[in-house]
């Protein structure tokens, strides 16, 4: 987030080296946010805690989309498939092999990393809309693949798998909803930190260069094929981990949980939140969690139409997503502060 703020400052025509005091602000903000997130479940009901757990989970999934589509420019309409793969990996490991739930999450992530990488290899030959269509096919096929007779023994077929609620780690005095919240929060923070480090370094510049100008990127010696497949893999890993966490939180997986609408919802969430950013994933997740409730409250007859209106409104008001809007507002505020500070210095 720090880098993004800085690049925004550059874009806004400010000196690249911000005053140290100004640079500290985002860090303090982040710490405050994290502290608030830690205290939150002690002030809200279990049901709300569960809802916020889903927000954290969705934020991880959306970050996967942001890395792939936002930073690397590969459009995926089928990320629901990786979400399902992660969820089923976790459910089968818990249900069939009795693996502890926390251990299933990294395994699900690894499985999705490999699956995403392998899917990314042939997908390399497809650009733009063609890739979107190939991934769309993957998303559409997912529920049917999950029903396939040959694997019914493990997947439970159309009936799905019911999983038991996880036990408390180290006997902490938390109820199951709070436990899952903190578990998801920990993983989310880790994954967000990982994404930030990945995207702001050499690898991140290569990923963005491929999006902005593939030929120039090749000329600079970037191995586009490898980077694109790896990005696909990492993105699938993020979404797969989100799927695994969702399966643990909801305690149930079934083919109907992973219909194509899920993949679309991920893309909406990313774009609304701000697809060219990391923080946007969190905004998008909040949108996906709470706006449908809002639109349902307005009309039972056509909740989807109302949701559509919200989507259009958001896109009109904040074309760069919520994260872009926040960045714009804070950059303007910084400009104003500076403008206010200058005469004082002069005088």
């Amino acid at each position, binding site marked *: 987030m720090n880098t993004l703020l800085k690049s925004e400052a550059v874009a806004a025509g400010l000196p690249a080296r911000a005053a140290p005091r100004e640079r500290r602000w985002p860090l303090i903000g982040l710490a405050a946010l994290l502290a608030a997130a830690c205290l939150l479940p002690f002030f809200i*009901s*279990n049901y*709300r805690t*569960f809802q916020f757990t*889903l927000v954290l989970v969705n934020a991880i999934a959306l970050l996967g989309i942001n890395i792939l589509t936002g930073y690397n420019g590969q459009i995926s309409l089928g990320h629901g498939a990786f979400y399902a793969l992660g969820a089923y990996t976790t459910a089968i490991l818990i249900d069939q092999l009795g693996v502890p739930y926390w251990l299933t999450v990294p395994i699900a992530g690894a499985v999705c990393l490999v699956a995403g990488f392998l899917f990314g290899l042939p997908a390399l030959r497809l650009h733009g809309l063609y890739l979107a269509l190939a991934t769309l096919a993957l998303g559409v096929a997912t529920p049917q693949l999950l029903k396939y007779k040959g694997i019914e023994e493990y997947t439970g077929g*159309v009936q799905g798998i019911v999983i038991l609620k996880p036990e408390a780690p180290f006997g902490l005095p938390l109820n199951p909803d709070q436990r899952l919240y903190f578990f998801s929060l920990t993983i989310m923070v880790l994954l967000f930190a990982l994404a930030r480090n990945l995207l702001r370094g050499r690898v991140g510049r290569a990923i963005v260069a491929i999006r902005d100008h593939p030929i120039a990127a090749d000329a600079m010696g970037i191995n586009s094929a490898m980077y694109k497949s790896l990005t696909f893999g990492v993105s699938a890993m993020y979404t797969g981990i989100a799927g695994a966490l969702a399966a643990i939180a909801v305690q*149930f997986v079934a*083919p109907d949980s992973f219909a194509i609408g899920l993949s679309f919802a991920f893309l909406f969430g990313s774009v609304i939140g701000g697809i060219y950013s990391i923080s946007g994933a969190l905004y998008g997740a909040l949108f996906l969690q709470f706006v449908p409730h809002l639109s349902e409250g307005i009309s*039972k007859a056509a*909740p989807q139409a109302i949701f559509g209106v919200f989507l259009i409104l958001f896109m009109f008001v904040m074309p760069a997503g919520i994260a872009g809007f926040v960045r714009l507002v804070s950059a303007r505020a910084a400009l104003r502060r500076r403008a206010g500070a200058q005469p004082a210095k002069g005088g």
Partner: protein
Amino acid sequence: MRTSISRSMFAGSIAAVLGLALAVGGAFAAKYDPGASDKEIKIGHTNPYSGPASAYGSIGKAIAAYWQMVNDKGGINGRKITFITLDDGYSPPKTVEQVRKLVEQEQVLLVFQPLGTPSNTAIQKYMNVKKVPQLFVATGATKWGDYKKFPWTMGWQPSYQSEAKAYAAYLLKHHPNAKVGILYQNDDYGKDYLHGFREGLGDKASRMIVKELSYEVTDPTVDSQIVELKASGADVFFNVATPKFAAQAIRKAHEIGWRPLQLLNNVSANINNVLKPAGLDAAKGVITTAYLKDVADPQWHDDADFKEWKAWMEKYNPGVSLNDGNYVYGYAVAYTMHQVLKQAGDELTRENIMRQAANLKNLEVPMLLPGVRVNTSPTDYRPIESVRLARFDGEKYVLFGDVIGE
């Protein structure tokens, strides 16, 4: 955690009240669990108002209109019904979220009629751990009668398996040498039918069933399956398809000159949605099972319950087509719930609700076929188990044979 403490305290206070009441000789006051009071009874409900199954959304509207009528007539034992219905988009994770909202935030007394097999599976364990009634679920899957493992969950309509067994019994009796071709939807619903049918035929199943073909909900047509079924030499066609595909199948069979005896699952028995699009001529002779009155069938139009239903439709659902079968279903299932709440009297605890739900004896529900009654007991969590066979004569269904099942 806080709620569970208050609940156990509550349970304790109930026990205390009960003891006191017994001591003073049955002169006890009203007893309430969350969601009930002197003034209201809160009922929670989820339904797919959006998403792939949104066609069923009208069931939720019908039920809401039913409670509106009950409230206009003064409520139940002086209490008004507050009906809270939420959209789950037919997505199981969403159902979990919405049902938790109903139970934990809205504090409903019970959850009534959540729709869909996967959605109900997703919440079943939660409901039973929380000990909140999950009543009269809107799915025909066979698993909704497991009173031992899930004492807080009860189905309502005849299960797909018991319906399939009715066809099997008919075939064994009247066409023991039939060669059966089956078309089924590749999901739990289709497989439930298949399973029940095979079980009903018993050891004759492998000889009598000559071909089983499936389709996916997302397929555009089932034409090739019908051609293949004809080629198999089948003389009985068991049509286990949802309305759109059932109509296609009947039409295609007619077009290619295949004239088997047709058994059509109840899911698609509707005259207006299925048989008319398929062609009334092509549908002539189709046999189905039924437990609800088909409103398009003129033979019911003079019945008292039909007239009442029609008056309700006109007053509370203006502008809705009288041919929408979901309004018959919603009306009948809400009537059953109404009866349970009436029986519960002033003891509106979750436990007593389940006790009364499992204590329906020969209940005659409006819009159910003559002879089909609702029966439950603590060891029978399947309210409607009987169906009747009916043959389509080109214009309406003609019931024949006795009531099948208990």
